[in-house]
C-alpha cells in the first residue's frame, strides 16, 4: 500500500498523537493491570467504550458509501435495548432469544429505512430522520418512559463480561467490523456499493441492482446499531430509552469522516472508520482522565476534529507533497499538474 495514498493514515496519525500526548502528560494511562482475571486500565476502557461506536460506524460507512446517511442509528440502539429489557422483565425467554429477537426487529426497521430510500427515492437525510425522532418515542413507549432495570446473567454476557481478559463487547464489535469488511471486499458487493455511491443511475444501467444494495446497507447498519444497543443496555443493566445512543449518529458519522471515507459516497474505508471511532473515544477518555475543565471539553474535541479534517483535505495534502518534493511540482504548469493528477488517479498510484 502506498502510504501517501492511504486514507487511513490520517486517522492513524491522530490516534497516535492522542496516545503520545497521554504517554507524556497522563500518568499511568498505559498501565494495564490484571484484576479479577481481566485486564484493567485506561486503554481497555477506551476499547470497551468504543465498541458501540465501532459497530454503528461500520454500518454507517456502508450507508455513506452508497451516497446515503443514517440518522436513526441512535434511536435504533434505544429500541433494541428496550425490546431486550422488556423481554427480560416480562417472561422467561431463552437467552439466545434476547439477542436474536431485538436484532431481527431492529433489522426490520432498517428494511423500512432502505425501502423509503432505495425504492421510494426519498432523501436519506429525511427518510432516516423519521425513525430518528419517532424511534426514540417507540423505545420510550416500550419501557414506559422509565429506565427499565434488570438482572440477567446470560444477557449481560455481551455488555459486561470478559473473555480471555478482554471485554466481550470489544471482540464482538471488531469481529463484526472485520466480517463485514471481508464480506464486501472479497465479493463484488464492495465495488457495487462504491459504484452506486459514485453514480447511482449509471450503476443501474450497468446492471447493478442499486435498490437492493441500498436496502441491504441500511439493514446491515440497523443490525450493527441493534448489537450496539444491546451492549450498552447490558453494560448498565438497564434500558435507558431516552439516553442510550443519543447523539450516536454524529459520533458514527464523525468516525467515518475521520477514517477517510468521503461523505458524498463512493470509496469507503472500514479500517479507517474503526480508527476514527478509537480517535473519538480516546479523546473523550483522555479529557475525562486529565480533568480538563468542563467548559473546554467540547472545544477541545472540536479542535481535534478540525485538525483531522484539515489534514485530510486535498489542498493541504498538495502543500505537503510540494514541501516534500518541491522540484517536480514547481516545474509543472497548472494544466500539466491537472493531467498529472488525473493520470495518477487512473493508474491508481
Amino acid at each position, binding site marked *: 500500500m502506498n502510504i501517501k495514498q492511504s486514507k487511513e493514515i490520517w486517522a492513524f496519525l491522530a490516534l497516535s498523537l492522542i496516545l503520545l500526548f497521554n504517554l507524556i502528560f497522563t500518568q*499511568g494511562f498505559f498501565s494495564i493491570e490484571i484484576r479479577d482475571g481481566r485486564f484493567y486500565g485506561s486503554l481497555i476502557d477506551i476499547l470497551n467504550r468504543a465498541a458501540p461506536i465501532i459497530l454503528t460506524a461500520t454500518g454507517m460507512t456502508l450507508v455513506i458509501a452508497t451516497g446515503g446517511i443514517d440518522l436513526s442509528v441512535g434511536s435504533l440502539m434505544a429500541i433494541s435495548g428496550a425490546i431486550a429489557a422488556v423481554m427480560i422483565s416480562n417472561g422467561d425467554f431463552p437467552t439466545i432469544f434476547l439477542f436474536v429477537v431485538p436484532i431481527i426487529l431492529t433489522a426490520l426497521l432498517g428494511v423500512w429505512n432502505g425501502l423509503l430510500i432505495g425504492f421510494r427515492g426519498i432523501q436519506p437525510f429525511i427518510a432516516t430522520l423519521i425513525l430518528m425522532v419517532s424511534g426514540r418515542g417507540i423505545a420510550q413507549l416500550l419501557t414506559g*418512559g422509565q429506565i427499565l432495570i434488570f438482572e440477567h446473567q446470560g444477557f449481560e454476557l455481551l455488555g459486561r463480561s470478559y473473555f480471555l481478559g478482554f471485554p466481550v463487547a470489544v471482540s464482538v464489535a471488531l469481529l463484526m467490523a472485520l466480517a463485514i469488511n471481508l464480506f464486501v471486499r472479497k465479493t463484488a458487493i464492495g465495488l457495487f456499493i462504491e459504484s452506486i455511491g459514485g453514480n447511482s443511475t449509471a450503476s443501474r444501467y450497468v446492471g447493478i441492482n442499486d435498490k437492493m444494495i441500498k436496502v441491504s446497507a441500511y439493514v446491515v447498519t440497523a443490525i450493527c446499531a441493534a448489537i450496539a444497543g444491546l451492549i450498552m443496555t447490558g453494560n448498565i443493566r438497564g434500558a435507558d430509552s*431516552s439516553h442510550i445512543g443519543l447523539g450516536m449518529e454524529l459520533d458514527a458519522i464523525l468516525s467515518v469522516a475521520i477514517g477517510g471515507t468521503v461523505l458524498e459516497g463512493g470509496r469507503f474505508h472500514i479500517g479507517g472508520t474503526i480508527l476514527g471511532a478509537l480517535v473519538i473515544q480516546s479523546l473523550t477518555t483522555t479529557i475525562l482522565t486529565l480533568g480538563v475543565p*468542563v467548559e473546554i471539553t467540547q472545544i477541545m474535541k472540536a479542535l481535534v476534529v478540525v485538525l483531522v479534517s484539515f489534514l485530510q483535505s486535498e489542498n493541504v495534502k498538495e502543500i505537503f507533497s510540494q514541501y516534500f518534493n518541491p522540484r517536480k511540482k514547481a516545474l509543472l504548469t497548472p494544466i500539466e499538474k491537472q493531467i498529472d493528477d488525473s493520470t495518477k488517479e487512473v493508474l491508481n498510484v
Partner: protein
Amino acid sequence: MKGMKVFLMGLFLAVLCLSGAFANGQQEKSDDTITVGLSNNGAESGWQLAYYNSVHEEAAARGWKLNYVEAQNKQENQIQALRSFIAMDVDAIVLQPVVETGWEPVLKEAKQAGIPVILSGRGIKVSDEDLYVTLICSDFITEGEMAGEWLADQTNGKASIVELQGTAGASAANDRKKGFENIINTYPEMKIIKSQVAEFTRTKGKEVMEAFIKAEGDSITAVYAHNDDMGLGAIQALEEAGMKPGEDVIVISIDGIKDAFTAMVDGTLNATVECTPLLGPKIYDAVQSTLNGETLPKFMPSDDRLFDTTTAAKELPNRKF
C-alpha cells in the same frame, strides 16, 4: 400551470385563515373551563413520569383542560410549544425549561398576549422578572448544601471527593454544584479532586467514573453525583473496579428515585436528597391564585428531605417515582 399553482396557493391560504377564525371562535365560547398549556422536558426519567402523573391527575381532579407537550430535551421544541399555546390562547402556561437562558423573546410574546407563565422544575435567567409569575421547584442550592452537610457530618470534615455534574448549563447542575461547594469550602480537609459532566445519565456516569478511578485510584473517598442515575452508574463502575461503594467510597446523590432507595437498602448508595416531582397541586394552586389576580412570591420552594441508609428501608414502599 402557473395560474393553477397561484390559485391553489390562494385557496390554501384562505382555508388556513378560515380555520384560524373558527378555532378562535371556539376558544372564546368555552371560557369557563381553565386551559393550561404545559411544556416539559421529556419523559426521560422516573422523576418526569411522576411529574407527568401528578400534573395530569391534578388537572383531571379539578376538571381543567391540560395541553401537555414534551420537548425531547430541546429548547427550540419548547419555544415552539409556547408559541402554539399563545396561538391557542390558553389561560396559563406552565414551563419546565430545558435550559436557563434564551427565553426572553417568547416570554415577551406570552406577556403581550396576557398569558401568565409559571415556571416549574428549574429556574431561568431573564433580565425582567415580570416575564414570569413564579417559580415552583426544589431549591437546588439547598439540595447541594444538604448533600454537603451530610457528607461533612459522615466523614468528620475529611474527604477526597469526585463530582459527577449534570448537563452543562442546566440550573440543576449549576446550583447543586454551588450549594455543595458552599459547604465543602468551609472544611479545609474536604476537597473535590475531580469534577466532570456526566449529563445526568447512567451510561455517562459510569464512563466518567471509570476514568476517575483510573486517574485517582484509591485516593477517592466520596462520590457526589448531581442526580441518582449518575450515582448509580458510578456505583457500577466502582464495583467493576473491585471497590466497595457504600463502604470504601461514600456515594451521595440527589433526586430520590426509587432505584436509589433500592440501592440504599442494598448498602451501595449512602444517601440521596429528595427532589419531589409531585408538584401538580402546588402549580395549579398558583395558577388559580394568579387568575384570581393575587400576587405570588417569585420563588416557591418545594419541601425536600434527605434520606440515608438508616431511613431508606422504611421509605422505599412509599416511593412513587
